[in-house]
């Protein structure tokens, strides 16, 4: 016997919502999903009228859904925002080409302007070239840092007021777990924040409107709405350690679906004891980006790549940063430490 939608009781239910377990028909599901995002945006006051908002678009399901929903809500509730798509080309042959095609199609489908920034333009290095120099062990470090800055720089070029990314509830929960497992207090404190404010030059405020949306629901939404997206893993396989946290999270969700929200809730209520050492935010003396060291991560990594010292950004060599800044030569021993790279 077909089950009735538990919300409107008129149409037949087509799915069970992973977040709540309720059986819903298509339109009630769409409405619930979109409405929750609307409530998230409104209660956290993520946007102001008249702002230009850059959506970090990768062609993947999260950013596609984000772009679609923002467009819908912007019109439905008259947010008065100017939306545009911002995409980053990391220069990974095969993987990136396909996803960029998807983003270009999104531009057509949602009728939103699109800008693409590439690592090549910004830094002079593609990920393919980086991997050749650096190997597969720490390449994610480079990519992660470079992408963050790339989005900011692209946004600055277009005079964007805010950036929003497609981080979903699963991502935030996973990050909380990772930070606890790695003992990263500073990040633990920040990672559940729905929006980060800018301190100092060069960082555009960014927010995560999908913070409370379950990944499963995003997939279902995209499927039922027949949204176009590209779903393959990066060819340079991601950090194996994060995979452990991911598996754990999925298992928790299987035992108790509210676990994802519970983890986020826990993260939001954690606070750091007084007297615990936290890094202080300053600015990079070379490019002005915000940084807790004299040189920002990006500059350090780039310097390493350009000098053929690929290990320069990996691990802690803060004392050497001063040397680099003042163009001093490194001793032979220091060079040797920074060169050796295991593939």
């Amino acid at each position, binding site marked *: 016997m077909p089950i009735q939608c538990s919300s409107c009781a008129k149409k037949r239910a087509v799915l069970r919502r992973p977040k709540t377990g309720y059986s819903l028909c298509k339109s009630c599901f769409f409405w619930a999903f979109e409405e929750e995002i609307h409530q998230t945006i409104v209660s956290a006051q993520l946007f102001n009228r008249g702002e230009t908002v850059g959506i970090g678009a990768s062609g993947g399901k999260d950013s596609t859904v984000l772009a679609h929903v923002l467009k819908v809500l912007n019109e439905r509730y008259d947010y008065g925002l100017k939306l545009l798509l911002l995409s980053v080309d990391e220069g990974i042959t095969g993987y990136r080409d396909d996803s960029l095609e998807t983003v270009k199609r999104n531009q057509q489908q949602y009728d939103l302007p699109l800008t693409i920034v590439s690592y090549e333009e910004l830094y002079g290095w593609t990920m393919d070239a980086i991997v050749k120099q650096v190997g597969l062990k720490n390449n*994610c470090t480079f*990519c*992660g*840092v470079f992408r963050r800055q790339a989005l900011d720089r692209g946004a600055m070029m277009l005079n964007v007021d805010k950036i929003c990314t497609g981080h979903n509830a699963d991502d935030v929960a996973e990050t909380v777990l990772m930070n606890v497992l790695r003992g990263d207090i500073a990040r633990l404190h920040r990672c559940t924040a729905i929006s980060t404010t800018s301190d100092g030059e060069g960082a555009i405020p960014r927010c995560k409107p999908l913070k409370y949306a379950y990944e499963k629901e995003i997939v279902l939404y995209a499927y039922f709405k027949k949204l176009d997206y590209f779903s393959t893993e990066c060819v340079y396989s991601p*950090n194996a*350690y994060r995979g452990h946290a991911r598996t754990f999270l999925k298992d928790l969700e299987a035992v108790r679906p509210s*676990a994802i929200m519970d983890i986020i809730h*826990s993260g*939001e209520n954690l606070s750091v004891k007084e007297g615990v050492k936290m890094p202080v935010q300053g600015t990079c003396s070379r490019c002005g980006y915000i940084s807790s060291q004299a040189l920002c991560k990006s500059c350090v990594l780039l310097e390493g790549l350009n000098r053929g010292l690929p290990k320069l950004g990996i691990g802690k060599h803060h004392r050497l940063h001063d040397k680099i800044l003042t163009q001093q030569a490194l001793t032979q021993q220091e060079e040797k430490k920074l060169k050796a790279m295991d593939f």
Partner: protein
Amino acid sequence: MCQVDEEYNSPLEHKSLPAVSKKCMKCKEGTAVLIIRVGDAFCRSCFKEYFIHKFRAMLGKNRVIFPGEKVLLAVSGGPASSCMLAQVQEGLSRDAPKKLRFMPGIIYIDEGGVCGQNAEEREKAVVQLESIFRMTGFPYHIVPLEQVFTLPESVLEPVYSREQPGSSYKAAVDQHIRTEVTRGHGEPAVEETQDAVGRLSLQASTYKPEHKLALEGLFSSLKTLTAKQDMLQILRHHLILHTARINGYSKVMIGDSCTRLAIKLLTNISLGRGAALAADTAFSDSRYGDVVMVRPMRDYSSKEIGFYNRLFEVQSVFIPGLDTKTADKASIQRLTESFVVKLQADFPSTVSTVYRTSEKLHTACPPQSSTTEAAAKCLLCLCALDTKAGKLQH
């Protein structure tokens, strides 16, 4: 796009291949019998010394136990609490000037009614434990979980019977001694203690059949194993707290090991108890006011405890719990235990890293301030409420 935002700097230590027949890293002479932490090999006698020293350093560093104070040791029969009992005996028996000077009692909560044991099995376990307890000479209380139905409502309120002690340890000790003297207690005579032992252990160990049924009813109404384990934890704490209060114990020692606390931390996060994290995993837990719970075993990994018990013949009794022989995914607690232990096998610094994280965290609103209104605390666990109905927190 790949959602990997920022990566972590410090490389993870992977487990190194086992080395064969090392020398003890401390005395450099004896043959090592075990490896703890990341590759530290110890010989038998150096290990014993290290282990015993750590216990007293833990108590000494935290300065929470006053000389002459009555301390209740919560023993479940398992390895960590049995080891804790052995350490207390060890610490009290030394003739060295740094001898521990407090008055211990033991409490064992018989949870057999909830864990599916019949009366005979429960009796058997109790007999085994009693023989261990008697050998220590400390007063002991065997309390069946069914007694939870005889608890007064006051157990759910924190009690602030004395003024807050002064800021220095010495001032606190002085105040404690003064309070004890005015109550008419000094060091009780040995015979008196033994009489008390006889009386107490008779009183508390029986339970009424209607309470047994009520307990079974309570637990069968909880649909998930996660909820049952949660409930068991709360009830256990309340019983221990109450027993401590009516018998004049101002401190309770709980045998949570480093491993167990790392698991507890992650479990709490997964259950949404982030706000109460610090209280549940810190060295001292003063949310109840007059009775402070301390965790002196928190610096020992379960491996260290397992080895110590084996090498130095510490007796423990294995009693099946709610989650014995259950599948990995049976409950959140079980899943987390499995996850942490597996991860620890590959990355030997996992437990200690998580443990250090817990030390740096605070509860969002500290629960132990007596000025917080009672209404703002959770009824069951006495931690500050962390929900504001109707408002999303960012």
